[in-house]
C-alpha cells in the first residue's frame, strides 16, 4: 500500500468519526416548534422530548408567585389550552393575550418551561375586556418568527 493511501484512509476514519458524533447529536438535539394542538395530538410520540411550544397566553391565566418565583399560565392556539409551569420570572414584555414560545418538556404530566421567550412586536396591544383574540393570526406570526 502506498504511504499516501494510508494517510487518506486515516483522514477518512477521523472524518467518519466526527460525522457520526455530528449526526447523532443533531438527531438528539433538534428542537421542533409546535402548537398546543399538535402537542396534544403527538403527545405519545413526543414523550418527554424537549420541544418549543408556540401559542397565545390565555387572558386571566397568569399567576406569578413572588415568594417561590414561579409563574404559571395557560397557552392556547384557540382550540387546545395547555397549562405551563415555569420556574423564574416572566420576561419584561410578557403580557396576557400575547404570542409566546416556551421551550421545555413534559414532566409528570405538567409542561415545565425551561425557557420563556416573548417575541418583541410593535403591533402588540393589550386586549380589551371581552375582546375576541385572533388566535390564528398570532400563532402564525410566532411561527413565522421562528
Amino acid at each position, binding site marked *: 500500500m502506498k504511504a499516501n493511501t494510508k494517510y487518506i484512509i486515516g483522514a477518512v476514519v477521523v472524518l467518519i468519526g466526527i460525522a457520526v458524533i455530528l449526526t447523532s447529536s443533531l438527531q438528539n438535539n433538534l428542537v421542533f416548534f409546535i402548537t398546543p394542538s399538535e402537542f396534544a395530538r403527538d403527545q405519545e410520540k413526543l414523550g418527554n422530548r424537549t420541544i418549543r411550544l408556540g401559542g397565545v397566553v390565555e387572558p386571566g391565566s397568569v399567576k406569578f408567585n*413572588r415568594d417561590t418565583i414561579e409563574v404559571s399560565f395557560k397557552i392556547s392556539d384557540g382550540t387546545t389550552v395547555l397549562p405551563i409551569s415555569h420556574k423564574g420570572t416572566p420576561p419584561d414584555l410578557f403580557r396576557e393575550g400575547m404570542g409566546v414560545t416556551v421551550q421545555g418538556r413534559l414532566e409528570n404530566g405538567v409542561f415545565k418551561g425551561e425557557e420563556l421567550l416573548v417575541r418583541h412586536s410593535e403591533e402588540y396591544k393589550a386586549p380589551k375586556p371581552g375582546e375576541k383574540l385572533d388566535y390564528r393570526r398570532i400563532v402564525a406570526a410566532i411561527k413565522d418568527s421562528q
Partner: protein
Amino acid sequence: MSWLGESAVLIALIFCVFGAVTAWRAGQTLDARLELVARRTAGITWLFSSLGMAVLWVALLQNDTSVRYVANHSVSTSPLWVKIVSLWGALEGSILLWAWILAGFVALLAWVAKPDILRPYALAVMFFVLAFFLGVNASVGSPFIEVPIPPPDGRGPNALLQNHWMMAVHPMLMYIGVVGLSVPFAYAMAALLTGQVGETWLQQTRRWTVTAWIFLSAAIISGGWWSYEVLGWGGYWAWDPVENASIIPWFFATAFLHSLQIQERRRMLVGWNLGLIVAAFTSTLLGTFLTRSGIVQSVHAFAAGAIGPVFFGFLVVTIVLVLGIAYQKLHLIRDEHQLDSPASREGAFLMGNLLFSSFAATVLIGTLFPVFVEAFTGAKSSVGAPFFNAVGVPLGLAILALQAIGPALSWRRATGDSLRQSLTVPAILAVIMAVVGFVLGAREWSVVLTVLFAFFNIFVMVRLTDKAILARQKAVGQSWLAAIGDLVNAFPRRYGAYIAHFGVLVVSLGIAFSGAYKSEQELSFKIGQSHMVQGHEITYLRLVGEEKPERIVQAAEILLDGESFFPAQNQYKTQQMNVATPAVQYNFLGDFYVIFLESDAKGTQVSLKFINSPLVSWIWFGGLIIIIGAGLTLIPAVQIQSSRNKTEFVAAD
C-alpha cells in the same frame, strides 16, 4: 445632506470600478504606469468613501432626520458616543463602515505592497470586492435615502447596542478582522491567476493574515464579554447564528495560519492553503448573508430586506469565479514533497487542518440545519447549544491535545527517541495534575481532560524551551535570562506561538470550568431581608430609580458581603425593551453575578437572580494573552551569535 452622501458613495464606486479595470490591465500588460494609476485610484476611492462616512456622522450628530438612516436608527436624546457608534448600529450603516474599512485596506495595500507580479492582480481582486460593497451602499443598502417629510425626532438605536461602551469597540474589531482576510484572499487569487502558487504569496501576506486574525480573535472575545456584561444571562456564547458567523471564518483562518508554515518550509499543502483562505473569506460573506437576510433567526440579526439576495448573489459569483480559476490552474496546484511520516510537524498541521475545518463545518451545519429541515418537511425547528457542545467539546479537546504534541514534533519525521525525550516527563506530570484535579473535586470528564491537556501543553513548552536554553548556554555560555532574551529575539514566531498557545489554554480552562460548574439561583427578597446565596450574604435594602434623557433606570440596592451593589434594569424610552445591567463581583477564581429580575410597584419585594461562574474571567485574560503572543510573531527575527567563538571575535573586533 442625503445628496452629498449619495454622491460620495457613487463617485467612490466609479473610481473603484475604474481601479479594478486598470489594475487588471496592468496585471496583463505589466505596464508600470497603468499600475501606478490603479494604486493612486485606491487612495482616491478611499477619500470619497471617507467623505460618505463623514456625511453620515455629521447627519447623526446634527440629528438630521431628513436622512432616513438617522430617522430610523438615532434619537436626539442619545449621548454623544451612542450617536457616533449608531453609524454601525444598523444594517446600511454597517455596510458603509465595511466598505470604508475595505477601501482603507485597498489604499494601504496599494501603498505598502511589494512591487511584484502578484500586486496588480491582488489590487484588482480587492477593488472587485470593494465595488460590491460600494455598489450595495449605492443601491439597495443606501443609508442616504431622503425622507420627504422629516419626523421631529428619530426612532432611536437598538436598546441593546447603547448599553455598554464595548459596542464602540467590538464591531470595529470585527470588521477590521473580517475585511483584513480579503488581503490574503486577494493574493491567493493573484497567485492562481499568475500561476505563481509557490510560497511568495504567503510570505507577502503573512503579516496581513496574522493581523486580521488578531482583530478577529479580539472581536470574538470582546463580543463574548459584551454578551456577558449586557445580556444578563451570565453566559458569553449562545451559539447564536451571528456568533457562529464570526467563528466559522476564525476556524478557517486559524487553520490557514498554521498550515501556511508547511508551504513556507516544505512547499507542501499548496491546495490546502488556497482552499483554507478561500473558505475563510467566503465564509465571512456567507455569515453576512445569513445574518442580514432573515434566513436564520437571531437575537441580533438586522431586519430582512433586499440586501440578503444581493449578498447571496455575490457569494455565488465569488465561489463560481474562484472554482473556475482554480479548475483552470489545477495542474499547477501540486506539492513538491510528500508526507514522510504522520509523526511529524507536517502531519500535526495536516491533522489540525482537518480538525479546524471539521469544527467550522459542524458550526455551519448546526446553523443551517433548521433551514434544511424546513425546506424538506415544512417543520420549524432549532438546533441549540447542546448540539454544538456535544460535537464541539470532543473537537476542542482533540485540538488541545494536538496543540501539545505539535511543537515537540520535528519536521519530516520525528524519531521515537526525541519524542520520548520531550514528551514523557510532561505527560507524566500532566497526568499527576489531572489526578490532583480529580481528587480536588473535578468530576466532569471534559473538565478533567481539559486540565490534563492544558498541563501537558505547558510542560511540553517548558521542556522544549528548557532544552533550547541549555543548548545555548552550552554554545555561548550565557546566563539563563540572556539565553531566553536571545531565543525570543531569534525566534519571535516560535515563542510568540508558545505565548498564544498558553493563552488558548487559559481560555480553555475558563470555558471548561465556567461551563461545567456554573450555578444559578433565583430568590425573592422583602425590604431588609437577608439570604445566604452560595456562600455570599445578600441583603436587599431598597429600590432606587433615576431618570436619564434617553432611559429610566431602576436598580435594587443590595448589600453583597457588606458592600453595596446596584443590579439595574434600563427602560429605553424609544424602545419597548428592557435591558438589564447586572452587578458583578469580579474575582480571579470566579465571578458572582446578580441580575435584577423584577419587583412589585413599590419595591417592597424584588426577585433577584444569582449566577456563580468559576474562572469565567480567564476567558478574557486568555484572549489578551493570545493577542499578545500573536502580536509577537509579527516582529522580525534578529540574528544572534550562534557560538562562543563568534562572541570573542565580536569582542576583539
